[in-house]
């Protein structure tokens, strides 16, 4: 029921950030002003991280798996020519064979085609929810951290309240309030799941962002920007954000896999995604009633789901290592 992210995985480590000059902005300015001083331009944190990542085998393996999954989600036709919705009841629950590698499900649909097509829902929910919570959480955290005082107290207590509700429970309540049925269009069904997860998911991002912004806003270059007459929005977007975003990026990569699991869990419970949408969670939930006779119905979608989550966890680990110099 609790969010499956261990405390050691969440990285509130921006201790290295404040001392740095505004990384990306500095690099660009150097290049624009002419190549002569390029060697003197300090490398940005993101540049450093990228150099590390390219050499990390964990990153390469997980990125390869994720690329395949994204391709599966975008163009399932590349992997299977079978129609996942062309089902023949005569094939109901047939075990794997030469013609159908993963066997058939209860309705006699080709399991391989359905498993391949199921990637889309998982990836969509994972990516959209992560983008959503990163955006909302960053805005809340930036305002709380930058303004301090009453704004901070108010926003922080608000964050605490949402934080105390277990995520799965909150999502179930939201989805039970706005139920989807078989007739609901696919984008609406997916949108509801994204919303249900997002309502309670943004709190950790807000806390991370707030603590890094509080550290960063005291840096000399922020004072300098203010002294030069930069407005609040310019200071926040050009000077503070690029230097405070690293922990959020790391957390987002890790939490993406968690959202994929939560989507499958909700669909498994029967209140997440609904029938016209093909999802691994629905397939697993359907398979449970026939666990004893046809375990293949559970094992294949279960394996795809697990590999997807594994890939995102490994990616998150690699990104965290690259962004957190203290661990080097």
């Amino acid at each position, binding site marked *: 029921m609790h969010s499956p992210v261990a405390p050691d995985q969440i990285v509130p480590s921006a201790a290295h950030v404040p001392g740095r000059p505004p990384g990306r902005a500095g690099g660009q300015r150097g290049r624009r002003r002419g190549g002569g001083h390029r060697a003197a331009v300090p490398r940005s944190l993101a540049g450093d991280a990228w150099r590390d990542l390219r050499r990390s085998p964990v990153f390469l393996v997980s990125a390869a798996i994720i690329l395949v999954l994204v391709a599966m989600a975008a163009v399932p036709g590349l992997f299977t020519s079978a129609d996942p919705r062309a089902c023949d009841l005569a094939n109901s629950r047939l075990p794997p064979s030469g013609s159908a590698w993963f066997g058939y499900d209860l309705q006699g649909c080709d399991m391989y085609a359905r498993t391949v097509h199921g990637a889309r829902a998982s990836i969509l929910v994972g990516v959209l929810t992560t983008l959503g919570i990163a955006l909302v959480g960053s805005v809340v955290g930036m305002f709380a951290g930058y303004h301090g005082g009453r704004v901070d107290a108010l926003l922080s207590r608000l964050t605490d309240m949402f934080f105390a509700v277990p995520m799965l429970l909150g999502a179930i309540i939201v989805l039970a309030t706005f139920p989807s049925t078989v007739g609901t269009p696919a984008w609406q069904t997916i949108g509801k799941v994204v919303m249900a997860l997002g309502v309670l998911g943004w709190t950790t991002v807000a806390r991370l962002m707030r603590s890094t912004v509080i550290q960063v806003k005291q840096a000399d270059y922020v004072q300098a920007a203010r002294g030069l007459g930069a407005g609040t929005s310019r200071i926040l977007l050009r000077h503070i954000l690029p230097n405070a975003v690293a922990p959020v990026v790391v957390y987002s990569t890790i939490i993406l896999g968690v959202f994929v699991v939560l989507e499958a869990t909700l669909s498994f419970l029967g209140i997440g995604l609904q029938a016209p949408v093909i999802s691994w969670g629905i397939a697993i939930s359907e398979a449970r009633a026939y666990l004893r006779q046809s375990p293949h119905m559970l094992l294949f979608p279960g394996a795809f*789901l697990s590999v997807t989550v594994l890939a995102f966890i490994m990616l998150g680990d690699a990104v965290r290592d690259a962004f957190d110099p203290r661990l080097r």
Partner: protein
Amino acid sequence: MGRYVARRLLQMIPVVIGTTLIIYTLVWSLPGDPFAGRCGARPCPPAYVAAMTDKYNLDDFWLVAYFKYLGNLLTGDFGETFQGLSVGEELLRAYPTTAKLALVAIAFEILIGIGAGILAGLRRGSYIDNLVLVSTLVVVSIPVFVIGSVLQLFLGMRWGIFPATVGGDASLYNLILPGFVLASLSLAYVARLTRTSLAENRRADYVRTAVAKGLPQRRVIGVHTMRNSLIPVVTFIGADFGALLGGAIVTEGIFNVPGVGNLIFRSITARDGVMVTGAVTVLVLVFLLVNLLVDLIYGWLDPRISHG
């Protein structure tokens, strides 16, 4: 110490009020007829609707209705469901089972999690270390409902080692399999946390001193290293215990455990708002109290942290 506890308890008040408000709003005030499907296929009789509207203050502005509800909560009255069941009694009936399940899960986390973490942390880079790292990664990436279903299939049905479902009889033996499934995810984190923490502390000065003054290996690791290494692990297990006491919707559903998670899920799908708000309020309170307890234990384990 007393002042610290008092301050923490006071700080809980706004969080509890806010959390119950969020839940109350979600359950009661969003669009949708609360009586839809309540009386079978036909619409509810007006007398019933009037009685229920009055009983649950459905005509009031939602904030007013919420504060009336909160007032009842303060007197210990959790209200009655639409079926006339007392929410307090239902919770009391379900809670012992959930608590037992949580204890079994915590026992697995301590035994296997810390055990594997110690084995791995003492010999970094060894075969056991790599085995622990890889297996925890695999366990973390398999969703609980897949682990639960697969273990139920093999251990419960195919090989018949453990009972496959719990049902009405929630004895400790029946809860072994669900407890293990419930613990699996946290178990992996506990193992990794113990490993990292132990490996870090083995390089500490006081450990070198202990070795230098000739203490036996068992005492160096068992007393000096372990006590310091287990602090983050205790924090994690404590927080996890608080979360587990909130009931495990998925695990309890798979193994048919009659606990709080099952109760909450049934009430949510039946749109039984009173039960949901009551249960969630209780579990948020338990979660916050357990966290407070963990912080107190923390100060006892590590005297440098004082709550003066």
